[in-house]
């Protein structure tokens, strides 16, 4: 029996955007700010997904992931996210640190390859030892209206993942409307996604507050309907600490404290960590730190 999309509530665009905008108007100061900064670091999937990635660059990124700053109060990030060919390097460097290795498989970022090729990529990446797989949905099929195919592909990739956690990237910047985002979230969760993720970071717009809110509400409703916990990962375009805690507050107010853990929430980012570290130093020393004192990858 082919998959049929269950009835999905339609999204009130104005309400979602107003609600999301409300999160940008709050301010966090002093000790709460320091706690929010540390919290943000714990949620980060520190990412490098460039054609120019080298083992050396991944190595430096892993060291930064484990110990982002000299100050021992700054925690490690949640995971390092790299291309499949770099998983081995990352695993060697991160062994025993508790920092997970995530990898983008399935012909990232477009997903435009044959299903067997994508499945093989996932299996091999998991065999290498990746803890988490970030897949992209088949937007070609989605936009052509072939919902069942999108669902079945995710389900078979979930199977190929075995013990690895599966994050499903919807690439919301290519879906067009909030209603499409809500529907795609539903399909991904029905197909067994452990996390749903906004974007690859290669398409603009990437993560936005309203899109993330729509996805968080889908997760909430799915949890109420089935009892199944699905995590959320906004990714792309989150560059400042201030933006990051807007997401954190939104998660708390939509899904509650239970989701404020790296097991259920991640921030996919690369330059965000540096901004958090700059803010951390500012909070610690009282003066503004220089970007030149931080590594640029």
């Amino acid at each position: 029996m082919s998959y049929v999309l269950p009835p999905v509530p339609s999204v009130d665009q104005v309400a979602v955007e107003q609600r999301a905008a409300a999160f940008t108007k709050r301010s966090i100061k002093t000790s709460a700010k320091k706690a929010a900064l540390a919290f943000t670091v714990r949620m980060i999937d520190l990412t490098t997904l460039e054609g120019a990635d080298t083992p050396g660059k991944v190595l430096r990124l892993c060291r930064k992931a484990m110990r982002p700053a000299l100050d021992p109060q700054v925690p490690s990030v949640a995971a390092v996210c790299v291309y499949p060919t770099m998983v081995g390097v990352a695993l060697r460097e991160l062994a025993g640190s508790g920092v997970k290795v995530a990898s983008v498989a399935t012909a990232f970022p477009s997903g435009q390859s044959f299903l067997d090729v994508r499945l093989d990529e996932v299996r091999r990446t998991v065999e290498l030892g990746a803890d988490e797989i970030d897949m992209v949905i088949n937007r070609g099929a989605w936009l052509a209206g072939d919902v069942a195919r999108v669902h079945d592909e995710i389900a078979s990739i979930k199977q190929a993942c075995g013990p690895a956690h599966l994050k499903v990237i919807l690439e919301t910047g290519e879906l067009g409307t909030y209603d499409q985002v809500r529907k795609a979230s539903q399909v991904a969760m029905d197909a067994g996604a452990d996390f749903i993720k906004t974007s690859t970071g290669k398409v603009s717009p990437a993560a936005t507050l309203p899109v993330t809110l729509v996805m968080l509400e889908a997760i909430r409703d799915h949890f109420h309907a089935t009892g199944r916990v699905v995590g959320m990962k906004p990714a792309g375009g989150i560059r400042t600490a201030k933006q990051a805690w807007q997401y954190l507050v939104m998660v708390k107010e939509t899904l509650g404290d239970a989701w404020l853990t790296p097991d259920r929430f991640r921030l996919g980012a690369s330059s965000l960590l540096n901004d958090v570290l700059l803010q951390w130093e500012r909070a610690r020393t009282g003066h503004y730190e220089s970007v030149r004192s931080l590594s640029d990858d």
Partner: protein
Amino acid sequence: MSAARRKRSGAPERVPVAKTYKLYVGGAFVRSESGQTSRQTDPEGRFVANVSKASRKDFRDAVRAARAAQGGWARKSAFNRSQILFRIAETLEDRRSLFEHTLVEQGGFAAAEAAAEVSSAVDRVFWYAGWADKFTQVLGNVNPVASPFFNFSMPEPMGVVVLLPSLRSPLVGLVSAILPAIVSGNTVVALVDGELLTPALDLGEAIATSDVPGGVVNILTGRHAELLPHAAAHMDVDAVGLWSADVGMRTALQTAAADNVKRVRVHDDPERAAWRDPAAESLYRIDEFVEIKTAWHPIGT
């Protein structure tokens, strides 16, 4: 049509559009993050305009913009930088009536002095622009060394320079601070204080239309006493120039600047006529904001 004639003709009275003077940061005109403004008044104390009053966070944003722009500005060819700086002089000349009007109406300058002030500002920009492709030859050197090396020293920009220009000379004092710093490839954040703030922000508008890339010159109007401690302690600022004889300010600056070994350049703030004197322009103002790099190149025996 005059207001009186319009009234007689029955046309409705026109509501004038007043200008809010905004900060110039990263090539954009922005209000202060704090929402604060100060009142620009004329010499009789009558209200003229609201001028955005920069806060600590505006300063932080301006340093970020200056840092982002610095590499690209320094990598431009010296000749290209000189062309762009010449363009500032052209734009200023074109707007001289605006500046003269402001100096007279808001600053209480006599008409002749206002004209002299603007002329001097244009000439000052022009003079420094000419140095862009020449100062390296004069400040750089080939050094005689007693070993088989070709040894030469070259001036290079320091990076991000914060300027606290003259409180007395609202236009010439400002360009005399900004131009020698940017000619070598530095980017600047100018913190403008004093009785007359509006010409500084009008200068920002002239610079914005002179092909100067956004972030190379950032102009903030605010209180020196409030912003100086943050400027002196900011780790991403490479040098600070201060034109003030105030011993307290000089000491505070030098103490806080020691943390990241900022270059600190302090000068007195002469009377405004002295600022217009050609003696106030000097190659050594360019020299103040460059570092000298010396290279040893083997030449064989």
